[in-house]
């Protein structure tokens, strides 16, 4: 193979339709246009199977095909000699292609007819350039390795999860020019992802949730595959379904609005995993089409791998050095009491009638406030982890992430109390006024 598949990845961005030639057993050639040629790895591509077509009939009888792909900048044509291997109808590759196809379909006004039935996987036997050698320019995309390196060095210096999250977003903005990004953590019990940090939105959206399987973020998480879409598609938009889902007995919302762009033209969600488990998702988006390239995907997948590793380490080390602090009595405060109401059904907590948080973070806040009423204000991660009333999952309880979520929600929405870090694995609940606790079963 004289040209590597990797070197021409730009041709697979979906910006220019490709063509595929096949042959019937009787020797009649067939040529058709293709919505999507998907780069699988340096030896394989996958073609979108949308309709039962002559192309499909031919490759099932005679597995050889030739695809022609076009460089979206230079217009140079490349011909890929292919051999059909198999069709995938589920799993990461299928889901990735389905999401991308939705973007391409929407871009070309073909949403109604573009439904992915399968991902046809082909082995690439040879690649030829149609242009004379002198015309092929060496226009490799600018390397993102320096940006990745700079970002990476910021992360290795972090000793706490909160800093790790903030440095990741600062690195994306500073070194990759990303304007809108989010970090979400996975809650295995509820099968939801919750936002713990964000970049570039009017409201941080910390605490907003996305169900596993919903939109680009949910599908990337469920399939544990990165998903990158270069065109706007309503199929994967969060703006409709996920904004302001209501339903509460306190007369208020129990959902925190998702902060994302209402009409992103480029989206990329990269799962963060550790030890084979899903930990969260790194999500970036843009108002511009085709903002993120294969090189961004490579860089962010590498970054997410480092994030996953660091998250696990920091979670474990947060329990260390947590010798029980000498517990000073909580300060006695005076003034008007604020009412904190907790609904046991979903652990949702309302402060003065306003929704604050629910789930594990809600249960933690309720426990802290209850203990505080008994005169305690100093706490350790370890005791929370051992507290049966919180029902934290054994492994991967993401306690640190939940405390960050709670800390940030309090900071944004509640002027009456706050969480102050007092050391590794230790913190204080500071309360500025008397609190009236009301438990609703």
């Amino acid at each position: 193979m004289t040209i590597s598949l990797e070197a021409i990845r730009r041709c697979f961005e979906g910006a220019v339709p490709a063509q595929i030639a096949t042959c019937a057993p009787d020797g009649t050639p067939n040529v058709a246009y293709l919505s999507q040629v998907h780069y699988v790895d340096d030896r394989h591509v996958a073609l979108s199977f949308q309709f039962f077509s002559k192309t499909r009939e031919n490759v099932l009888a005679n597995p050889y095909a030739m695809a022609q792909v076009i460089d979206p900048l230079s217009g140079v044509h490349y011909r890929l000699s292919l051999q059909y291997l198999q069709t995938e109808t589920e799993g990461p590759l299928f889901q990735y292609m389905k999401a991308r196809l939705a973007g391409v379909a929407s871009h070309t006004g073909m949403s109604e007819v573009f439904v992915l039935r399968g991902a046809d996987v082909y082995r690439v036997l040879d690649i030829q350039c149609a242009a004379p050698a002198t015309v092929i320019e060496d226009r490799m995309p600018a390397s993102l390795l320096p940006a990745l390196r700079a970002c990476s060095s910021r992360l290795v210096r972090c000793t706490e999860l909160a800093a790790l999250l903030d440095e990741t977003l600062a690195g994306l903005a500073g070194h990759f020019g990303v304007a809108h990004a989010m970090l979400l953590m996975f809650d295995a019990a509820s099968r939801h992802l919750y936002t713990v940090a964000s970049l570039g939105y009017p409201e941080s959206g910390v605490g907003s949730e996305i169900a596993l399987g919903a939109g680009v973020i949910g599908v990337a998480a469920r399939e544990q595959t990165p998903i990158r879409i270069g065109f706007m598609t309503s199929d994967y938009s969060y703006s409709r379904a996920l904004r302001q889902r209501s339903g509460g007995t306190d007369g208020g919302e129990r959902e925190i609005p998702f902060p994302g762009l209402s009409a992103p033209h480029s989206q990329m969600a990269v799962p963060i995993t550790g030890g084979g488990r899903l930990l969260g998702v790194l999500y970036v988006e843009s108002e511009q089409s085709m903002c993120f390239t294969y090189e961004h995907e490579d860089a962010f997948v590498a970054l997410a791998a480092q994030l996953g590793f660091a998250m696990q380490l920091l979670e474990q080390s947060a329990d260390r050095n947590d010798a029980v602090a000498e517990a000073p009595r909580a300060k006695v405060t005076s003034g008007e009491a604020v009412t904190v109401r907790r609904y046991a059904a979903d652990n949702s907590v309302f402060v003065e009638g306003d929704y604050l948080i629910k789930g594990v973070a809600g249960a933690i806040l309720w426990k802290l406030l209850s203990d505080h009423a008994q005169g305690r204000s100093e706490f350790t991660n370890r005791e929370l982890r051992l507290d049966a009333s919180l029902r934290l999952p054994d492994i991967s309880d993401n306690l640190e992430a939940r405390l960050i979520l709670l800390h940030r929600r309090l900071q944004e929405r509640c002027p009456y109390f706050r969480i102050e870090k007092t050391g590794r694995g230790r913190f204080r609940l500071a309360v500025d006024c008397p609190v009236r606790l009301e438990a609703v079963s």
Partner: protein
Amino acid sequence: MLNAAHAAFIGRYTSMSVAARDARNHPVVGRALGCRVSESRSRLTVFLSASRAAPVLACLKENGAIALAVTRPTTNETLQLKGAVVEILPLAAADAAEMAAYRESFVAELTSLGYGREFSKGVLAGNEDSVAVVVELVSVFDQTPGPRAGTRMEGRT
């Protein structure tokens, strides 16, 4: 073979791709740089670059089996024409004019979609060494994306 509307559709504003096959029955593909429909609408003259579409031309010389897909990018309207090569000729004076007119129309189409000049130039490169491939049409298929794609529209049975 072709109706008047199809004949008018094919030659302007469209992207043209040609397929052929070798002795092993492996397919090859290349771009066509224009085509002309004969007065009887039963023949096509397809213009191919001798260097850029070399694998296709080699197969066409060998066995003559050819397929041509023609699509208009702004509408996705697509036809596929199949046939057999009658002869391969050097360009005549009228052919060059036809290629230039086609080229102008397709560049306008690409420009309206936001593609730049450099891209269009790259896509349509190869006029300088083109040849004229005369094809006797056998069948025509509607290949506009959708459930009707692949429907045979006209042709011998």
